[in-house]
């Protein structure tokens, strides 16, 4: 873990970072095969499919079958990257992910788009429980990237890793908070992005972006947050999390996921393990089905918009 401080949230975006990263990976390694379940247009997979038609398998809308096929490809030494929406990769194909991809030496990467509340549809499309489900699988690595840079870096790290990886994806124009030059994604590492010291915040994925937005508002109110970013939920550096928490009476976790079984649990487990006394307040999707609509609307409804979240952070100090 190397603490580093990045600039406050920038509106800079990168177009289809996953498409580029996948294409580059496909050029470097000919053991990479990609699978889609009728969503190649919607998950930035099309450029790979067009460049490497022989190494792209369209499975139709049949996620469980797609994961099973990935398992077969893996058994013959290929590295399958199965790409769909998070809800379908996890809820629909959970047993297949567990049995075909997690029980033996063969491995794969499951890339899961529309994480959490980043879809206008409700329970059917919001992957709010995927991190909890995937974290529970023995040996599974679970990554929720913050931005375009981390997504691209995490794909490379996943491909280099000896084990199955669940990676949340971000599509279209994706924010770029982290400078891509010289960035390498380190599995399991946590990073301090802000170190104001007044309030303690821990984020993962877009939750970290929301924490940074709220921190900006807080700074305008004269309160300076420390923000720890935890892009890998498993494995995780429990000691580093506990060390960060030790400086605060309360920390607030912020995640694009239900507050059950995801980041809040990761932090609580780290604290319980190390015997630290810091309290954990959890921001994210509470134990309800989130509403439908635009991301801004859903964030407001859940108290995750910058102002509401800033107030929550201020109260938790």
């Amino acid at each position: 873990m190397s603490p580093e401080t990045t600039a406050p949230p920038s509106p800079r975006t990168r177009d289809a970072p996953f498409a580029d990263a996948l294409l580059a990976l496909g050029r470097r390694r000919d053991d990479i095969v990609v699978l889609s379940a009728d969503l190649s247009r919607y998950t930035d997979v099309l450029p790979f499919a067009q460049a490497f038609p022989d190494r792209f398998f369209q499975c139709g809308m049949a996620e469980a079958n797609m994961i099973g096929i990935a398992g077969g490809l893996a058994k013959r030494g290929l590295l399958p990257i199965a790409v769909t929406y998070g809800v379908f990769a996890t809820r629909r194909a959970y047993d297949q992910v567990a049995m075909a991809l997690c029980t033996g030496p063969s491995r794969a990467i499951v890339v899961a788009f529309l994480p959490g509340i980043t879809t206008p549809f409700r329970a059917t499309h919001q992957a709010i429980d995927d991190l909890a489900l995937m974290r529970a699988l023995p040996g599974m690595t679970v990554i929720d990237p913050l931005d375009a840079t981390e997504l691209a870096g995490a794909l490379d790290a996943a491909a280099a890793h000896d084990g199955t990886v669940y990676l949340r994806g971000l599509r279209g124009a994706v924010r770029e908070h982290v400078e891509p030059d010289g960035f390498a994604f380190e599995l399991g590492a946590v990073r301090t992005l802000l170190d104001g010291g007044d309030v303690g915040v821990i984020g993962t994925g877009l939750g970290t972006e929301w924490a940074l937005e709220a921190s900006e508002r807080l700074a305008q109110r004269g309160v300076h947050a420390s923000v720890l970013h935890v892009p890998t939920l498993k494995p995780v550096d429990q000691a580093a999390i506990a060390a960060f928490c030790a400086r605060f009476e309360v920390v607030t976790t912020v995640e694009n996921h239900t507050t059950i079984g995801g980041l809040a649990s990761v932090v609580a487990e780290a604290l319980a393990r190390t015997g630290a006394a810091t309290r954990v307040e959890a921001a994210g999707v509470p134990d309800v089905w989130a509403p439908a609509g635009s991301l801004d609307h859903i964030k407001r409804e859940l108290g995750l918009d910058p102002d509401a979240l800033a107030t929550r952070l201020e109260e938790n100090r």
Partner: protein
Amino acid sequence: MTALEMDRADLARHAHGIRRRVLEMCRGRGQGYAGQGLALADLMACLHHHELRRGDDGRYRDALVISTGHSAIALFAVLGELGVYAAEELATYGMDGSRIEESPLEGLPGFEITGGSLGQGLSQAVGIALAERLAGSGNRVFCLVSDGELQEGQTWEAAMAAGHHRLEDLVVLIDNNRTQADGLTASVMGVEPVPEKFAAFGFAARRVDAHDVDALLAAFAQARATRDRPSAIVLETTLAKGVPCLEEYRNTHYIRVEDAVWARALDELEAAAP
């Protein structure tokens, strides 16, 4: 005009009203599942104004289970016509805070199940049909699934159960628009021959032109007369049917266009009013 001809003219008027509502719903945000709504208008008119029976309380006793969540727009439109949803509320389709969601959950008036996580609806329709049979209600169950949903294994698990249990009051309606998210169904993952597949699972199966009201009514009559086995009606639908300026979206899952196009679509529809 004979009674039959009057019935046909009525159904055409209802289908037209459904198409108008579909366009009005999408116009608010300039986007929506207009293709499916327009394609299913004739079916919805024939189901709600002819085939589904009402009880003494005026409510439908026969069930319509929409497995294809995003095709909700067609159900919203016909229910709008029937006064279940006001036009002003339908105009909020897909907007923040509206209950007229693009893919709604169970419990909203008219919605028996949560569709949209595709491929799950037919199983629930089988469960409803088993419950109706157990209760001796005689109520029938219609279930709308898409051609894309035929790729999900669960659809076939449900079909096998329906055939095995000889659910004669179950009718599967397959929206065979030959299109899915990544393109033409035949190129993504072929599903044909659909009637033969359902027949092999114990269904009385037939293919119909879903924009020919007579053909639809005849298929319904055949399903009604079929005892001892479930029925499958493979509906040959055309996305965006009835609106020429949206023709280029005939193989598109979702439509997002300028307001001028929606205005023109409404004009074209009015010009063709029955």
